[in-house]
């Protein structure tokens, strides 16, 4: 048993070295395939983060009249928070609004002066309402409309809701996000499927070149395990080596892309690569090994039939 295993391992390694050309060709193709899979993972992550970023920038602002009491504001805030569509409600008080305004115009002397001349705070409080999904803003807007125009709307404390101003762009953004989400998913599935197929076929060709050898081994009386073993080991080695090479190629690319993505997407891809390195490594190398193993088992089986 042990001797058999030892022989299979040795024969696998020797075959790997002596079949240099076939080994190199297989590793090359598998590296490309795994590189595509790795890039797909990174791109997917980047896309997801940037879509999240964009979604987080969308919100509805409810501006209150300056006379609105804290109680009124808080009761509206509570009722908004109780809506299932609403993810968060952030309150900006009158004082905070004033401070933000001053900060924003700190270099704009005439505006600050005008503000001081007014003597009192002209700004009302506001609520920033954020929905879980961009398509849910319509519902929230309807609810706020109700508050403004429905019963007791005469003494409504709401000054303005900015949903209608942004309605068109929010809807456009929502459809873009949906389209990008689903199309990128399809593209990724296709890329991964193509990579797997290419790897599978390459290994099949590699083993096809050995079909004579396999038939000779059978004639000499080698058992199927004994014939299959070295090929399985070689498949695993191809996967392992290709996975490591693919990671080594990805590293400098991501290192170079990192700062660029940080400025453009506010997300440093390199940081992600480093922090999630273990899982990236496991997925790429693991995919390689699994692909190599499964492909070689399937390919050899073809020639083991008597």
């Amino acid at each position: 048993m042990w001797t058999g295993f030892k022989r299979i391992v040795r024969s696998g390694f020797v075959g790997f070295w002596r079949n240099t050309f076939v080994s190199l060709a297989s590793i090359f193709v598998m590296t490309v395939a795994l590189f595509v899979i790795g890039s797909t993972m990174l791109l997917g992550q980047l896309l997801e983060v940037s879509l999240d970023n964009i979604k987080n920038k969308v919100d509805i602002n409810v501006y209150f009249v300056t006379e609105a009491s804290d109680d009124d504001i808080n009761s509206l805030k509570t009722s908004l928070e109780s809506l299932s569509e609403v993810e968060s409600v952030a309150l900006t008080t009158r004082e905070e609004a004033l401070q933000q305004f001053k900060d924003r115009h700190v270099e704009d002397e005439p505006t600050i002066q005008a503000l001081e001349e007014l003597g009192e705070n002209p700004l009302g409080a506001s609520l920033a309402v954020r929905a879980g999904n961009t398509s849910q803003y319509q519902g929230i807007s309807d609810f706020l409309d109700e508050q403004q125009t429905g019963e007791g709307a005469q003494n409504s404390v709401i000054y303005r809701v900015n949903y209608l101003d942004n309605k068109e762009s929010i809807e456009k953004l929502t459809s873009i996000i949906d389209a990008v989400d689903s199309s990128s998913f399809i593209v990724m599935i296709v890329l991964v499927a193509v990579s797997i197929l290419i790897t599978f076929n390459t290994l099949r060709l590699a083993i096809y070149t050995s079909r004579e050898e396999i038939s000779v081994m059978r004639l000499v009386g080698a058992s199927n395990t004994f014939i299959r073993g070295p090929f399985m080991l070689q498949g695993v080695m191809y996967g392992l080596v290709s996975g490591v090479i693919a990671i080594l190629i990805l590293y400098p690319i991501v290192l170079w892309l990192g700062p660029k993505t940080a400025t453009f997407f506010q997300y440093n891809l390199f940081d992600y690569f480093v922090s999630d390195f273990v899982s990236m490594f496991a997925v790429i190398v693991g995919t390689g090994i699994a692909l190599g193993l499964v492909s070689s088992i399937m390919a050899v089986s073809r020639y083991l039939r008597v």
Partner: protein
Amino acid sequence: MIYFDKVSKVYNGGQSTALREITFQVAPKEFVSIVGHSGAGKSTLLKMLIAEDAPTDGQVFFESLNIHSIPRGKLPKFRRRIGTVFQDFKLLPHKTAFENISFAMEANGRTDEEIAENVPQALELVDLADKAWNFPHELSGGEKQRVAIARAIVNQPDIIIADEPTGNLDPIATYEVVQILKKINDLGTTVIMTTHNKGVIDELGKRVLTMDEGRIVRDDEDGRYVL
């Protein structure tokens, strides 16, 4: 030892017949040559013997064992009792002469000690001790065939099957290969060989089966090549 009982083989669903009701026996330690034109059915006959192909009709016995009732999983074990030699040598191209021979022993589950002892002996027998570490592409045709013979005998099989072993060889290499096969037969192994070579048959002077169109048309105890 080997018994063919009315063996027929039909290819392509009845369109071409390779063997027609072949019946013959081979006794232990015999040296049997099978001659015949190309397409007479010689190779098909040998394929039946190593269970590479199954007969359409009839049975082939190896001692009391019906070869074609052996379950697939047990075939490797059966094949280890038969040493095979082919016209095109069928060596493993990425293994040296030594490794080609030791592979047969490894597949047979022999120990490393046995391998270290028997492989050099086998190489010695075919007079190739100095080429042990050459790859097949570094050997001449005759040398390749001698490696193949060493591989066939290293597990001490009950029988050696040689399918036109001299078909690709020049006269001198042919002579050497036939001498080695004769020596193996003298040492007690049954040999079944197909050939086209009149000189080989006449020199051997052993039993000859002549085949034509899938039938055995002659069975001579003292071999002459008559077609």
